[in-house]
């Protein structure tokens, strides 16, 4: 007998999706929008301002985006776990105001730092209390805390700006191997979080919670503990980001990082994090942070008004989320 007889298909061809070509797997993913923009943007900008391609310039201007990028990295984990937190920019403002105020009142630096970080932890835990314990939808609950935390900062600081001690200023001017320290902090945080997310059990559990929380709980994952941990971490990191930010600014007002929630969510979305949870990467958010920094610079150099810049960021947010959803809906099997 010859072996040329057709073998009856055991699987209905309609059931099995054809494997996607390798180039599609690599290139058609949400983060490519960011990569594309990250390549295009400096080229366009350098036509007008040659210095915008200068590496030292890019590194030194990134220090202003660094606090938001740092929080956005942790926010990425929260979004992957299927929740969201819009309040970190406000908790940053509140903790930074407290940090500056207690130092002005004569509290020594180490104690002030402990108070600041402790407060960040409390703010993060309060978010977790609302979302995890009371089971409020995180989007709307953190809108409440967004208003509340910044309101508290306003109560504390009024309309005044609080000065920080002279010696504490200028963290962005300190360089290690020619890289400003804030940039280095973001880089180290990104590497650590990327390892945490992709190489530990904890990281895989975060993905599982975001994909299907009920299934994750039935699989024995401590979903509530993990979510609480994530919110608390975000609170602590927002305090650290605030301490980093005020060192560069020298003074702090209640409106520190006003509108930062837009930029943070934008970084996560541009980085290809799926808004409904379960997908995303730290690398994407990290790249998006650099993209936003370079873009903000170009817009500042072109002397665009802040509100006009926000206009572009708003459009970018909607475009990026549409692209992300579209690509994920096409490739989800």
């Amino acid at each position: 007998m010859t072996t040329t007889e057709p073998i009856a298909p055991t699987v209905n061809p309609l059931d099995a999706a054809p494997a996607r070509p390798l180039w599609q797997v690599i290139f058609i993913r949400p983060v490519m929008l960011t990569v594309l923009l990250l390549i295009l943007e400096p080229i366009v900008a350098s036509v007008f301002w040659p210095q915008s391609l200068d590496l030292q310039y890019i590194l030194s201007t990134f220090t202003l985006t660094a606090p938001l990028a740092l929080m956005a990295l942790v926010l990425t984990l929260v979004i992957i776990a299927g929740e969201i937190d819009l309040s970190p920019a406000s908790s940053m403002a509140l903790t930074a105001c407290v940090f500056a105020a207690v130092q002005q009142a004569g509290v020594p630096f180490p104690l002030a730092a402990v108070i600041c970080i402790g407060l960040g932890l409390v703010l993060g835990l309060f978010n977790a209390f609302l979302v995890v314990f009371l089971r409020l939808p995180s989007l709307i609950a953190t809108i409440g805390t967004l208003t509340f935390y910044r309101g508290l900062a306003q109560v504390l600081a009024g309309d005044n700006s609080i000065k920080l001690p002279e010696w504490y200023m200028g963290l962005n001017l300190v360089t290690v191997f020619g890289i400003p320290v804030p940039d280095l902090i973001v880089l180290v945080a990104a590497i650590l979080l990327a390892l945490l997310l992709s190489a530990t059990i904890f990281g895989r559990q975060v993905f599982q919670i975001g994909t299907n929380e009920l299934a994750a709980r039935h699989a024995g994952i401590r979903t509530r503990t993990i979510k609480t941990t994530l919110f608390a971490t975000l609170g602590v990191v927002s305090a650290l980001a605030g301490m980093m930010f005020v060192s560069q600014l020298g003074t702090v007002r209640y409106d520190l990082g006003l509108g930062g929630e837009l930029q943070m969510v934008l970084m996560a979305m541009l980085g290809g994090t799926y808004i409904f949870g379960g997908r995303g990467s730290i690398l994407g958010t990290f790249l998006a942070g650099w993209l936003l920094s370079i873009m903000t610079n170009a817009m500042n150099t072109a002397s665009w008004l802040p509100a006009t810049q926000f206009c572009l960021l708003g459009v970018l947010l909607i475009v990026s989320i549409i692209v992300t959803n579209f690509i994920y809906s096409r490739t989800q099997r």
Partner: protein
Amino acid sequence: MNAVRLLLLRREIGILAAIIIFCAIVGIANPRFLTTDNFRVILLLMPLVMIAAMGEMLVIIARHVDLSVGSTLGFAAMMTALMFKLAPGIPWYLGFAVAIGIGAVLGLINGVMIIAFRLPAIIVTLGTLYLYRGLTFIASGAKQIDRQFIPGPLKAMSANSPTYAFPWIVIIAIAVVLITYWFANHSRLGRQVYAIGSNPVAAPLRGIPVTAVTLVVFSISGALAGLAGIMYASRWAFVNPSNTGWGFEFQVIAAVVIGGVSINGGVGSVLGVVLGVLLLSCVSAALPLLGIPGTVQSAIYGLVIIVALVIDQTVRERGIMALASTRGART
């Protein structure tokens, strides 16, 4: 007995009690709070938030949320004021049509993006919150429109009153509330909004045109924000690209959620929202009389949102438990 208990369990009674207790305490602390002058202050604080809250209420009942109302208000107010500035001959009442029209278009854009791309409303409207604000800046060239460009009859609407102590903008707000009451409780479309919010999965199966209703709801929210925009121009006699409507969405959402509208959709009443706006306005009016600086206001709005959400959640869980226990008793 049972009827009385049911009445007392209504959410509106709780808010009403909160208002009365609050007013009594503030009235004891500072008797000026309970005078007719102060009543007028409270009355004039309410219309803008009230009108926008009616739209936001419908959006939240449909299980969405609209964060862009403040920016929509700002953009509509700015475009109307620009129209008055560039074409002074235009009749002032045309401003209402323009503001409402612009607001409706902005709301419709929100709705289209949410429906067409199946995006969460909160992220889309967070984007348009900044987008519309930026457009306001671009359109105005970052310049304020001063009072001499706002038509006199329009400004007079906040001062003149056809009847005792009620300026026109208050009467407009009352009219909007009555129409919304009719729409939400007695029109087919309004009931469909509740149906969508109660169960988004079941609604299309019962033949409710979810897409159309959602678009209408967002358009209404935008249109009412636009109406609030021209009333802002009437009330304050200027339009500023950065101040007008900034942070307005938090006031509106605070008023709506404290009015007992459930963030999980399908629950909420016009009366509750009216009382919610009244409570927030009483708080705003009480602060200066108690010698508390205005900077506290933002913190209070935030706290109010959180407390209202927590109350809503506990009431809902108790309701589910009560339902389960009665069912258990019957079988």
